[in-house]
């Protein structure tokens, strides 16, 4: 069904700019965000992330153990998938729940600097800046609440006679209070004050206590300061930091001192007559003190890292050392701190590359994820392309003003596009940016009669442009196969992780075409030995049940081979994998018909001991197959880097065309068994 546009309508449409012109979300706060945001798009990942953030809101805080363990969640999506928009939608949380999303303001990241120092600087910056949507400076809001709590404690700790003296009556009042003993009026004023302090209040309201309760605010501030000095008496760094921080908060709230926090930052936190302490120790305590005050006001702290290309691959050149340092830093922080959540928004290729550089220390910590009751931990969120209903919502939203001008509510929601075009675009696997660009081009053609044609429908490799893409892909494939071959010539086992990841990614991509009902977990690690125990897990629905097929590479030779094989059988027992079938891909040149018989003696013993029956299949992979596994992620990242709009469907088609040898190795995918 096509929508014909008459001249009158066209004239109105032409009086507006193209509403699909902004396909890229800027790396700064967009004031029009609320106008362009559509709740339905990425609703599920957003809800998952909000749930994760909310799990860091603690109702009771007694010590750092009250806080949940720190964790990282990686949000993965191809370029243009809407990662930055998702982050911004998290920052502009519509339900109004307070949260502190700490984002980088620039690309500076010095891998030689302590990561905790880096996080501390980011946190301070974020506390001192007005919030993106509410405009409130979080430090002021926290300071007000903390000051109120300290005031409440102060009032509670004053005895009746101290309350009388604290009002500091002068002259006539003093003698009246002395001789007539009408101090109960003052006590009731303090009671009212305590009741008022139990409720949250703004800094302005706290400063007006003088009028409401006839108590001088300067006097109350002095009392609160003294109470703080008297109760927080420790001589160690943390106590000193707390004293300085809380005092700064009291000054900022009660005396309206805007530079109170700066004074805190410049304070000397070294304990008196104690040994000199390193900056790293101080920073750790400073960070802890800030995390603590945020926890006290139920404010989750989330460090969100978006646009990783900006500092890990400036100018398109990936900096492996920097990436490793970044991930190690996050892992170290996860290890040392509670109550911090990291959101890493990464492009698929970039993420794979980063993980390759991450050490064995970082990987398990990054993969731990956020735990919820009754749910598996959330460590990764994949951003999928929005489908047709969401695309229609997007069109409706962007056309909103124009539809108002047209005053025609009966127009279809896909107006002014033909339904076929919208359906085709909506059902394509293209990322959201590509879809918006397609809409922009089509809109230009429909409304302004622009010669620029809309972006090609995706997944169909036809036309000149697509031929060019195919040629480009083939050229890169050849190059990457050569690169992979050279790597394998040096060491097969040394590339074990990359091979396992490549196999997983390859199967995931190919399976999306061959068996869309299946779910692939491309890379899972089992056991303590970092060299072995790597799997790809395929979950296939079969006769109402899910068959879990674990696929592992047997790469070791000599003494390590029995251990390698032994670790593969762990897939049956491991909680994460719980495999119902196991496919072991043995890298060998052996041409024997019965591979099991060809296993070296001790490895054969392991096989026999494991009582490997029909649940386990041993298959051979040759050097050519390994090269494909290693080359695929390299190729995919390269083509995406060179051409960010390289269609996902084209990648899948490429895999099924060029990597059939690998896909047929695994029975349910190749459908040979």
């Amino acid at each position, binding site marked *: 069904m096509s929508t014909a546009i008459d001249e009158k309508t066209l004239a109105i449409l032409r009086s507006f700019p193209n509403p699909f012109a902004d396909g890229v979300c800027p790396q700064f706060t967009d004031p029009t965000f609320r106008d362009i945001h559509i709740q339905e798009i990425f609703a599920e990942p957003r809800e998952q992330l909000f749930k994760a953030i909310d799990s860091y809101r603690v109702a009771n*805080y*007694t*010590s*750092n*153990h009250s806080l949940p363990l720190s964790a990282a969640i990686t949000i993965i999506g191809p370029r243009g998938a809407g990662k930055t928009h998702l982050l911004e939608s998290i920052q502009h949380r519509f339900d109004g729940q307070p949260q502190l999303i700490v984002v980088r303001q620039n690309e500076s990241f010095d891998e030689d600097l302590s990561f905790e120092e880096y996080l501390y600087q980011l946190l301070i910056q974020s506390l001192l800046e007005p919030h993106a949507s509410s405009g409130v400076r979080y430090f002021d809001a926290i300071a007000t609440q*903390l000051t109120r*709590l*300290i005031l409440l*404690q102060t009032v*509670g*700790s004053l*005895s*009746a*006679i*101290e309350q*009388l*003296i*604290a009002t*500091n*009556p002068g002259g006539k009042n*003093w*003698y009246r*209070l*002395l*001789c*007539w*003993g*009408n*101090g*109960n009026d003052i*006590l009731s004023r303090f009671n009212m004050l305590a009741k008022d302090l139990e409720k949250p209040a703004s800094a302005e309201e706290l400063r007006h206590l003088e009028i409401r309760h006839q108590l001088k605010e300067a*006097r109350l501030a*002095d*009392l609160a*300061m*003294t*109470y*703080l*000095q*008297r*109760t*927080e*008496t420790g001589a160690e760094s*943390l*106590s000193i930091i*707390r004293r300085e921080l*809380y005092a700064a908060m009291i000054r900022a709230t009660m005396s309206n001192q805007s530079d109170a926090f700066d004074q805190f930052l410049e304070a000397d936190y070294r304990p008196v007559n104690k040994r000199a302490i390193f900056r790293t120790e101080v920073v750790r305590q400073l960070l*802890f003190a800030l995390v*603590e005050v945020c926890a*006290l006001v139920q404010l989750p702290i989330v460090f969100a890292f978006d646009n990783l290309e900006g500092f890990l691959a400036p100018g398109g050149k990936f900096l492996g050392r920097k990436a490793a340092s970044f991930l190690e830093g996050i892992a170290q922080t996860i290890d040392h701190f509670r109550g911090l959540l990291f959101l890493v928004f990464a492009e698929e290729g970039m993420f794979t590359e980063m993980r390759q550089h991450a050490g064995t220390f970082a990987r398990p910590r990054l993969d731990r994820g956020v735990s919820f009751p009754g749910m598996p931990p959330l460590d990764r969120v994949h951003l999928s392309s929005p489908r047709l209903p969401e695309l229609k919502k997007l069109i409706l939203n962007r056309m909103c003003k124009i539809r108002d001008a047209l005053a025609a509510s009966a127009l279809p929601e896909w107006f002014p596009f033909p339904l076929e075009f919208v359906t085709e675009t909506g059902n394509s696997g293209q990322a959201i940016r590509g879809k918006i660009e397609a809409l922009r081009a089509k809109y230009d053609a429909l409304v302004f009669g622009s010669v620029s044609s809309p972006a090609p429908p995706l997944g169909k490799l036809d036309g000149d442009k697509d031929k060019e893409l195919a040629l480009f892909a083939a050229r890169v494939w050849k190059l990457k196969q050569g690169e992979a071959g050279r790597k394998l010539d040096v060491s097969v086992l040394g590339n074990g992780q990359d091979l396992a990841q490549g196999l997983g990614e390859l199967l995931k991509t190919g399976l999306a075409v061959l068996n869309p009902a299946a779910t692939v977990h491309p890379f899972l690690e089992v056991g303590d030995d970092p060299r072995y125990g790597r799997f790809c897990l395929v979950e296939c629905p079969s006769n109402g049940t899910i068959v879990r097929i674990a696929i592992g590479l047997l790469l070791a030779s000599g003494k390590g081979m029995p251990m390698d094989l032994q670790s593969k059988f762990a897939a049956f027992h491991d909680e994460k994998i719980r495999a119902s079938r196991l496919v072991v891909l043995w890298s060998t040149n052996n041409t024997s018909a019965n591979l099991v018989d060809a296993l070296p003696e001790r490895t054969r013993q392991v096989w026999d001991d494991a009582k490997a029956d029909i649940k386990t299949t041993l298959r051979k992979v040759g050097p050519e197959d390994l090269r494909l596994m290693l080359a695929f992620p390299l190729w995919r990242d390269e083509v995406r880097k060179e051409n960010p709009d390289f269609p996902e469907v084209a990648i899948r088609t490429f895999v099924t065309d060029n990597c059939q040898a690998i896909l047929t190795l695994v029975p349910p995918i190749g459908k040979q068994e």
Partner: protein
Amino acid sequence: MQTETLYLPKSSPRDQTLSPALISASSHRCWIATESGHAVRLSLAGYMLHFWASYRVCFSEPVKDLRLTAYPNHFIKKQSETTAASSKHNESFKYVPIRASYQHWWDSLTHHGNYPHEIELEVTFPDDRKTTVTLPIILQMRLPLRILLIIAIAFFWIPYGIARDAISGWDVSSVFSWKSWGFGVLSALAYVTWYICLCVWSLRARAIELHEQFQERWSGRCG
């Protein structure tokens, strides 16, 4: 030398606990009330207690036991050795009943000023923790009684002075002299003035003492 196992004294784990400045202070309240439950007047010198009156030293629940450990026993008597429980305005509390009185009626003539003292209350909480609360008090006679007594003393003072002068000088005329009566009235007024000053002075001295304690506790930043 024979080695021995390292002795580790018991200590709490090194935990990053909440700052003591933010740990909720006890919500307990301690006060002195009259027998009918009304709060006793509080002045800068302490709770104002009257002779020949009964009071309750109250402490808000939950509390296991209350015990008066220190009090001016020549003026204050415990009415009961046991603690009683009561509630008012939805606040339940336990109290120790006391009575302020002179040991002998004659004391009321010699002790009719302000007498600052302290009451120390030992509180045992349900978990057997103990704490001591000190309440400053001022013992005094009720105001109308005091006025009456002062006037009575003053009026006794006038004829006493005139009679003393007449007897010592063997001169009856001084009894009928306006000068003598005038001098007597002035003496009575001087006594009343002296008495009022003395009372205020004693209250003031106590208030200054409490103020100094307050300043010491609140580290001199205030005041």
